[in-house]
Structures are given as C-alpha cells and as structure tokens.
C-alpha cells in the first residue's frame, strides 16, 4: 500500500494524504482543523482490508502521522507547552489522562445525543409562532446610550497578551530546512543527516525530517542507509541543482 495515496475524507480535508501533507507544509491548511484521529482510522481501515500486514507502509505512516501530531499538539497548546515540558513523566501522564478522559466523556455524550435524536425522529412539534396567534408586542426598555459606548470600548481592547513562554519552543518553518539542505548539497554531494541534526531541538528535528521527506518526494535528494541504525546519508540528484534557481518547483508539482 502506498501511504501517500491514502484517500482521506475528513471534515477539513478530502483527498489523498499526500496532498494534505503538502498543504500543511505550505501552511495553506491549518493543522488545527485536521482530525488526525480520522487519518489514523482511515489508514487502519485500509490496512484491515488487506490480508497481510504491510510493515513498510506502517512504518512510513507512523513517522508521518507522529510528525503531524507533534506539530499539531504544539500548535494547539502553545501556552501550556512549556509547563508540560517541565512536568515529571507521571505528572504529564496524569495531565494527558485528564484531557483524554474529558474528550472521551464528550465523545460518549455525543453518541448518547445521537441515539436520542434518532429516537425522537417521530416527534414533531411546531417551530415558530402559531398561525392565528396574536402578534406579540415586545416592548423594549429604555436603554442607556452609555451602554453602546462601553461595549464598543470592550471590543477595542486587545485580547490578553499571549504568553511568550512557548517562544523557546518555536517551530521553524519547513522552508528554512528545505533551503538549508539544498544549500548543503550545492557545496557537497552528500551529507550525514544525524550530524546536521546535532544541537537542534526535538521540534526542529521533526521539521527537518518533514523537509527531508518533502525533498525526497520532489526527487531532489536521495536517502540511503548502509544498515539499520547506520547514519542516514542524504545525496544529491540531478534535480537538486535545477530546483535551486526556482524554489517553487515542488510547489508547482504538488499543488
């Protein structure tokens, strides 16, 4: 199975996984709108249709989807990220459990509502005024014009300042790594991925990895590994040079 061709049917997005990734990378689709669980479900369903386990596809999928999830988690909880990062594993687990529990309850409540709605299918009632009802006389109390001024003043107050605590965990744009890797391959025919990742934060590494996948997809690099766990080597292809002048080459291809 080719993971990137996985057809998705989500609230925010419909189409192949591949296109979803591209849109997210180009920041044309907000990850906050994407239901990652829906992607996982779609994949698992496809997987279940097959007789045997496609380990390669599973591996690729896990990497892609975990990168997506990390990006999304950080996007959704920018403020709390710093706090969470400082938590002991037990505390973090408890916090995560609390959130999962809350969502779980709401999911079940939604299921209950759905069932209830189905049960009320044959209950009809009037929505709106009766045909021959008297016209309601809705008198409005005299209002204070200062009320108008004060709501407008409230609307002109800037929202509370966003905590800067998460700035230390800033996510670099993918484009930054695209450029960096292309620049490297202009001066060298090959580089060692792990070496380049040295000193980078975990989220920078995640973004770098996404950039790598993107370059591979656009056939601008080769990726090789002598043995499992051996260093990952990134090499030049003929297209590496060609696309140097025109960065949007992969944009055109993937849009």
């Amino acid at each position, binding site marked *: 199975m080719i993971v990137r061709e996985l057809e998705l049917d989500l609230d925010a997005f419909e189409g192949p996984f591949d296109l979803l990734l591209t849109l997210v990378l180009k920041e044309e689709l907000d990850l906050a709108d994407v239901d990652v669980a829906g992607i996982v479900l779609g994949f698992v369903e496809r997987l279940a249709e097959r007789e045997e386990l496609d380990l390669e596809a599973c591996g690729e999928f896990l990497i892609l989807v975990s990168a997506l999830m990390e990006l999304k988690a950080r996007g959704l909880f920018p403020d709390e990220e710093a706090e969470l990062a400082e938590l002991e594993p037990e505390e973090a687990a408890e916090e995560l459990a609390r959130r999962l529990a809350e969502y779980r309850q709401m999911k079940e409540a939604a299921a209950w509502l759905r069932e209830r709605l189905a049960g009320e299918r044959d209950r009809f009632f009037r929505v709106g005024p009766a045909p021959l009802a008297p016209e309601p006389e809705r008198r409005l109390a005299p209002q204070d014009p200062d009320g108008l001024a004060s709501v407008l003043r409230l609307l002109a107050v*800037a929202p509370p300042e966003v905590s800067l605590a998460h700035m230390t965990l800033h996510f670099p744009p993918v484009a930054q790594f695209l450029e960096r890797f292309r620049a490297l391959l202009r001066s060298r025919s090959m580089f060692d991925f792990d070496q380049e990742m040295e000193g980078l934060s975990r989220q920078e590494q995640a973004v770098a990895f996404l950039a790598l996948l993107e370059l591979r997809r656009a056939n601008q690099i080769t990726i090789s590994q002598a043995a499992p766990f051996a260093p990952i080597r990134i090499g030049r292809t003929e297209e590496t040079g060609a696309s140097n002048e025109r960065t949007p080459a992969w944009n055109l291809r993937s849009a």
Partner: protein
Amino acid sequence: MEPPLRLVVANPLDRLARTLEALLVVATAPLSLEELCEATEEEKDRVETALGLLAERYGEGRSGIVLEQVAGGWAYRASRDAAEACARLFERPVQRGVSQAAMETLAIVAYLGPCTRPEIARIRGVAADSAVAGLVERGLIAEAGRGDGAGGAVRYRVTPLFERVFGLESLSQLPRLDDLGDDVDAIRERLHAVASQRSA
C-alpha cells in the same frame, strides 16, 4: 375527545381526525384541504368529514382550542374566553433588555454608520447573522442599500426607533469615544486591528 369517537376506537375516521389534529398543531400557517389530503393520503370527502368532527369538538365555548377555517385553510386559535390570558402572555409589559450580541451589533452600526454583516462579524469575531436578523425584526436597525454597487452586501443603519429607545435626539448625541480615535475612520481602524489580533 368527544364520546362518539372515543367509544369506537377502531373507527378509521377517528384515526384520520387524530392525524389532522396532529398536523394542525405542528403547522405555522393555515393548512389547506389539499395539503391535509396530501399529508394524510386520503380523499377530500373523508378529510372534510373528519374536519367537520374536529370543528365540532374544537368549537367555541367547548374547548380552549378552537378550529377555524380561514382564507388559507384550517388552523387552531385560542378561544375567546381565553383572550385576556393570551393578552397577558403576549403583551407582557416586561421591559425587555438587549443581549450582549445585540448590543455589540447596535453599537457598531450606530457608531460606524451603515455597515454590512461581514463587517460586523469581523469586528465581533463571530457571525452576525442572527444578531442582525433579530435587530431588524425588532425594528432597531434597517437596510440601507448595498455596499459598493450592485454585488455588494446589504448595509444596515440604525432606525428612529433605536434613537427613541436609547433616548437620543440624533446620532450626534451618542457618547463620545475620543479615547478610541479622532474620527469614525480611526475608530473603525482600531476595531479592525483588535479583531485581527483576536482571531490570530
């Protein structure tokens, strides 16, 4: 139920009458004979007979619900005996307040002059459709042409009723907002800037 109908439970005319009862209590407009036939999948004659039974059961002086034949068809109304109680229900001299959504919308339209729903939504950060519809219904704002020619969105302005309710002789009497800007354009700009911060 009238005894004759209750005693002969299996009588299909009784069942038809019940179905008509139900249809009439859900309708927001009088139902024509045709509509009643269509909904019940019955012949005109039978529906008319059943309506006759209902008209008798729901007759003035017999029931609080009165079935009436009007221009558009059949509909329930309140009995005349209940007129006073209905008047108390509908003409409650309760002094109605203005919701937060309505107040914000009114303030925007009053201070910034005719504006469209998208602009109101942008400043408030939420869709303005129901707030605008409610204010139009209550006569506090009214349409004032379209913005930027034919294809533009409908613009709204406040009405004389708005001025009366807020005790203003004219809009120039609105409290000043010097702290927000020098003129309408400055205030508008400020509100837009904050709105984009809020949505960021």
